[in-house]
């Protein structure tokens, strides 16, 4: 079977949707030359009218996508840096997201905001290394963080086809993941449905994005001591609460690993929901970036603020002991 890399999966999803639906177009900075590689080959296949290089005007081109969507198009914006979402937060959260309700359901804004390379990129320092998906979840904007190439393909396709705005975080830590896959099996992955990557009976680890792979490695490592279930929500908003409830019902214990700042993060939301709804046999734990982390430049410092496998193993052991 052929290899599919995460990056290539994003590329394939864009190409397939551009081919399927003439309303779809891609815009962003350096997308024609495909500096991020995600739009590679699309200019040649679909032409400059559907693969639009924009000036460095994030606010204008994000608002522009809203207008194009209101007029019947399905724009996909590629953002070069996760922090660019801060510049366009107004256009996404206060404009695109609010049109449906505020117009009494007259219209929809089907825009996809794609961030290939979110989170730490090793050596790019504080302004390039954020993982602000919880901000969008808080605002109620549909937000996905695929962990694997096949889910990246399937979630991007679903994001583009969805009638609401959807933000797609493709973690830098997952971009080089490759799977051996039959391309014919690639399919849309519904938003809001999690995935159990590994079944277990002692503890549920909720892992987000690239950390799914770390969680699986830790589960292997601990195989002699504990049976670890790895649950990947895939979509952080709307979250698959029923899926997680099912997992926790089997295991009774919960650890969350989330590569984002601690306060008001997705891990915090999972723990709050667990306190309200789940019947846990031990206090849950979360492994996250520190509160208010700004990712420092030096590699050892950069790694120091990201959740790692040792921290996760320690948290699992602690939850199992309680």
């Amino acid at each position, binding site marked *: 079977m052929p290899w599919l890399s995460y990056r290539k999966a994003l590329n394939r999803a864009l190409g397939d949707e551009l081919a399927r639906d003439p309303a779809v177009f891609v815009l962003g900075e350096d997308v024609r030359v495909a500096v991020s590689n995600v739009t590679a080959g699309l200019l040649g296949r679909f032409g400059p009218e559907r693969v639009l290089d924009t*000036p460095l*005007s994030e606010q204008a081109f994000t*608002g522009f996508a809203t207008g194009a969507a*209101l*007029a019947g198009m399905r724009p996909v914006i590629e953002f070069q840096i996760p922090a660019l979402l801060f510049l366009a937060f107004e*256009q996404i959260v206060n404009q695109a997201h609010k049109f*449906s309700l505020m*117009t009494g359901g007259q*219209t929809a804004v089907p825009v996809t905001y794609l961030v290939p390379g979110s989170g730490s990129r090793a050596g790019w320092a504080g302004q390039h290394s954020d993982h602000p998906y919880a901000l969008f979840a808080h605002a109620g904007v549909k937000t996905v963080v695929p962990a694997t190439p096949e889910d990246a393909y399937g979630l991007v396709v679903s994001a583009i086809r969805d009638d609401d705005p959807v933000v797609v975080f493709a973690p830098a830590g997952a971009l080089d993941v490759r799977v051996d896959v039959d391309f014919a099996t690639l399919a849309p992955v519904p938003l809001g449905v999690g995935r159990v990557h590994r079944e277990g009976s002692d503890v549920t680890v909720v892992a987000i994005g690239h950390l799914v792979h770390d969680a699986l490695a830790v589960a292997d490592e601990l195989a002699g001591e504990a049976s670890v279930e790895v649950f990947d929500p895939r979509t952080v908003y709307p979250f698959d609460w029923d899926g997680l409830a099912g997992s926790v019902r089997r295991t009774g214990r919960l650890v969350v690993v989330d590569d984002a700042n601690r306060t008001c993060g997705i891990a915090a939301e999972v723990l709050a929901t667990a306190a309200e709804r789940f019947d846990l046999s031990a206090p849950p734990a979360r492994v996250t970036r520190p509160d208010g982390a700004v990712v420092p430049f030096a590699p050892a410092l950069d790694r120091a603020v990201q959740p790692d496998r040792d921290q996760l193993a320690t948290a699992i052991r602690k939850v199992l002991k309680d």
Partner: protein
Amino acid sequence: MALLSAAAHADLYRTVRLIRRFEERAVELVRAGDIVGGIHPCTGQEAVAAGVCAALRADDMITSTHRGHGHVLAKGADPKRVLAELAGRTTGLNRGRGGSMHAADFRLGILGANAIVGANAPITAGAAWAAKRAGDGRVAVSFFGDGAVNQGVLLESLNLAALWRLPVLFVCENNGYATTLTVADAVAGTITGRGEAFGIPSTTVDGMDPVAVLDAARTAVDRARAGGGPSLIECVTYRFDVHHTWEHRARVRYRPDDEIVKGRSRDPLEIQGSRLSDVDRERVDAEVESLVDDAVAFALSSPHPDPEDALDHLYATGLRGRPGDGR
């Protein structure tokens, strides 16, 4: 100036008169507590909405501002449903979900008024781009105030529209103030200079005269439809009433009395009214009066939304999030 038929003059006058009376009645409803949150009345500035929209086709698109009732009415929105929206009723344009600053009617190309200064500019550009791609000849108008010309997103949008030759009209209503701040205290250079910097044909017109506005808008619309790209029209105007109705109670003072007297001395209603015979004018006035009476009656007798439905339409797909009430 273009020679217009008597009927065309009467149409312009009807629009100006409708907006004026609509706003006056809306202010009364604010005072009476029937419109919650107040409004930004556009009395005095009616000529801009009337002149620009008279140059448009029914399928052309507009976006508007916090001071947007005039634009929406001039584009053809039903006064009943606009007023019902202001009163937060289910029969409103937005089913009571938008209110004064967000009136939208997509069937009429009204892509929404917008409460964030400058935010409508890129939306207009995107809609115009889609129209250009579809080749349907539609143009899109972005109305904005003098306060918006210092917003980065507006300048970014001027660049995009010029770069991609988009069929957009940027219509600046320069009423001299952004809330209490004068243009002199806020704008370095000029408003038309901002357009010219991007190679956009930019003109300043008398924004108190609907015919002068219509003239400039026609030139710009023709250019846009012919593929000539965007234009910017600065309409110099004066707001007769407050920035927002909270001023009726707060009485902040920032406009000198003599300026107010001078500003009000050129009234679009009189400028356009003088172009009609007395009989015609009285006939239009009577028509408008009954339209507005009907609108008030309709709005006040319409149902209030059910609190259970507060988050209806939040997602186009019908997604429902978790309730917040501890259930």
